[in-house]
């Protein structure tokens, strides 16, 4: 790692890390979404067996996915970590990154709200059987976590590409 005389990482290194970060968010998000949908359909498949999937099976298959979801939220909304100085963290999480995070949170909010409204409508219509809930909840959580992360990643990527074009 190239370091400046003041002891901090160079700003170029900070910019490179920022680019790696949105790529990492994108990768984490895609794997989380695929795993979430896979889990939902697994639960759906087991629902046909007597009594549906056991609680132990739901926890065993869902726990890694939930941990991965926390990792997605951590790389999307967490700070850069102690490896970087306070000044470098300010650059990494500057106004543009904060604005992109706010946009991402707003997208997640509306996604969850729309999903809950859909679920509520289905419940009122009498279509919310336990099987629907088992499938809907993982899909709703997947959308609520992956949606904002994806939006943040795309906004950061667009800003990076644009900066490269005009730099």
């Amino acid at each position, binding site marked *: 790692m190239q370091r400046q005389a003041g002891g901090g990482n160079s*700003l170029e290194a900070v910019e490179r890390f920022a680019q790696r970060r949105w790529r990492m968010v994108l990768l984490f998000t895609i794997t989380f979404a695929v795993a979430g949908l896979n889990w939902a359909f697994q639960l759906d498949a087991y629902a046909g067996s007597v009594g549906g999937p056991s609680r132990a099976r739901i926890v065993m298959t869902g726990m890694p996915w939930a941990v991965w979801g926390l990792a997605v939220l951590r790389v999307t909304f967490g700070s850069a970590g102690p490896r970087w100085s306070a000044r470098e963290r300010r650059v*990494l999480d500057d106004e543009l990154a904060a604005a992109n995070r706010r946009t991402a949170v707003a997208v997640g909010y509306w996604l969850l709200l729309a999903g809950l409204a859909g679920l509520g409508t289905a419940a009122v219509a009498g279509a919310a059987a336990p099987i629907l809930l088992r499938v809907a909840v993982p899909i709703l959580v997947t959308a609520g976590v992956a949606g904002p992360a994806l939006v943040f990643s795309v906004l950061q990527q667009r800003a990076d590409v644009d900066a490269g074009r005009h730099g």
Partner: protein
Amino acid sequence: MGDRGGEEAGAGRLRVHLREARTGAGWTQAELAGRVGVSRKTINTVENGVFVPSTVLALQLARALGQPVEALFTLPGDELG
């Protein structure tokens, strides 16, 4: 203000003359970003009118460039003397 050039930001509510001021000072985007303490892509998005900076960042940019903030950001129709 349209005759002064610059990018429009915030749905045409703000005209940005940061690029002219920066190139006039002979700085690259990276140099200005380093002096203000933001990323280069933040400077780029402000220059291109994609991102409207906060008052604090606008004042920091003005201070770094040694210009009044009104020279960097103007409202359509405004004229500087």
